[in-house]
């Protein structure tokens, strides 16, 4: 019966017990258990990508009124497996003048930076990985390693397009890290801890997306920008950068960037589900841990579905539009949100939780409305200026110093 309620936890306990019986010293048992856990989780995550690629291609196909993969295996399920086998046998082409060490290190680091995120994410009540007391910051910090891998790739390739693509990508990533970090402050404020497990436990009653929808929205948009997907896929920008930082890569080295991208897309959905959608929380998840895992996966796939929907339906931003969205909308909004939430939380502290949540919710909606309103006003003014310039009345032209475009 124990096995049915919590199969993963059961296997872990059985494995640790079995290691102990072998007569190893306890510190070795600990290391062995951790090593096995890491191996299983990392392998599982890498193999999971095969399924993700199929899911995404199928979904994009449906969005674009196509079938998607449907030849290999039932519903085309084996298509990514076939693709993987093919890419395994492709030649590595190293461009002349490439910086060998950085060139080869980049794809490895790209995958490692994404895999490492899985080490602190709690998958159910009993399977928590590593309950770090700075878990949320760790998740953001590891993103920095990913940025480093793009720089290595762009610089090591000895190619102008790769270099430009890499630097443009890194500029995008670091810019969107600002609202990401700032909006991550709000769940920390509500939960009173940086530990990811603690944040999940704090959402027992109310999911943070209910208490802070604006923060969730900012976090979600910034997360999509962090994985560099449409509408933020300027790195790919085939028409201007050919393919960005990974242009000189071939064979499985390119495949590793591909794996990293897909896994990252799923992992940020997992992080979003953990931080804002209550993680494994749900009816009966405490008693039957495996149910919590199922809840988490369902939530994650809902979020992942939305990111794929974005990818399939939205056109690509221009780079100045993307930067404007980040620096002139998301960053000021998250700054205002932190200040407002802090004050409202401080004032309503004595009230029951219900009223507190209502207060938070109102502040969030108010700020979202204000941001929307200001954006509309700015847009209207811009249109007016453009019109004035076109008709040549020239009175307003001096105020267009920071106009658009190169």
């Amino acid at each position: 019966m124990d096995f049915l309620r919590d199969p993963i936890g059961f296997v872990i306990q059985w494995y640790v017990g079995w290691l102990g019986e072998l007569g190893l010293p306890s510190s070795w048992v600990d290391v062995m258990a951790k090593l096995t856990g890491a191996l299983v989780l990392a392998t599982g995550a890498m193999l999971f990508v095969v399924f993700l690629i199929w899911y995404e291609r199928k979904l994009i196909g449906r969005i674009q009124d196509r079938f998607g993969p449907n030849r290999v295996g039932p519903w085309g399920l084996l298509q990514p497996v076939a693709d993987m086998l093919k890419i395994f046998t492709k030649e590595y082409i190293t461009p002349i003048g490439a910086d060998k060490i950085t060139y080869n290190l980049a794809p490895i680091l790209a995958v490692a930076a994404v895999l490492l995120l899985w080490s602190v994410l709690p998958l159910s009540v009993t399977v928590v990985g590593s309950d770090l007391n700075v878990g949320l910051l760790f998740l953001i910090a590891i993103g920095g390693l990913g940025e480093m891998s793009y720089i290595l790739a762009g610089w090591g390739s000895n190619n102008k397009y790769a270099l430009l693509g890499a630097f443009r990508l890194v500029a995008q990533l670091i810019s969107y890290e600002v609202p990401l970090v700032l909006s991550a402050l709000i769940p920390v404020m509500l939960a009173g801890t940086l530990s990811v497990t603690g944040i999940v436990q704090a959402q027992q009653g109310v999911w943070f997306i209910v208490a802070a929808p604006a923060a969730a929205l900012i976090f979600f948009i910034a997360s999509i920008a962090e994985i560099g997907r449409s509408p933020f896929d300027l790195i790919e920008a085939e028409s201007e950068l050919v393919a960005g930082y990974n242009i000189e890569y071939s064979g499985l080295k390119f495949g590793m960037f591909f794996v990293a991208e897909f896994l990252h897309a799923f992992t940020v959905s997992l992080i979003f589900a953990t931080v804002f959608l209550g993680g494994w929380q749900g009816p009966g998840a405490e008693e039957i841990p495996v149910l919590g895992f199922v809840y988490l996966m369902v939530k994650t796939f809902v979020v992942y579905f939305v990111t794929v929907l974005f990818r399939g339906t939205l056109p690509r931003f221009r780079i100045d539009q993307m930067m404007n969205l980040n620096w002139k909308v998301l960053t000021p909004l998250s700054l205002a949100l932190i200040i407002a939430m802090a004050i409202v939380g401080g004032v309503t502290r004595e009230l029951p939780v219900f009223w507190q949540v209502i207060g938070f919710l109102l502040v969030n909606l108010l700020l979202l409305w204000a941001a929307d309103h200001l954006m509309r006003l700015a847009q209207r003014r811009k249109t007016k200026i453009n019109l004035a310039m076109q008709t040549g009345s020239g009175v307003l032209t001096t105020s267009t110093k920071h106009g658009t475009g190169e």
Partner: protein
Amino acid sequence: MLGNWLYIGIFALVALLMPAITILIAGFLSPKRPDPIKNSTYECGVETVGPNWTQIKIQYYVFALVFLIFDVEAILLFPWAVAYQFLPLYAILEGALFLLILAVGFLYAWRKGALEWF
């Protein structure tokens, strides 16, 4: 605490070794037939002109700098956010003041046009 970090350290080793070994294995399986044309820098068939390590524009630097300032600021606020529920109202306002001071700098950057991409 250290046990948690041990797991992350082991995980980091595994995460680095796994793609490395996969790439190595694929290297044994794949053909190796290099030739100068194939290995030349890919620029859509056009010959490369000049050095490939080009200079970037200053705006990258400006954005990195603004990012750094905000990163440090957020880091300083994280302990405050952790302790938030135990803080009296004036301490919460101190955190808000911290943010407001920075908002002034942000406004300056905005007005000065440092946040424009051209």
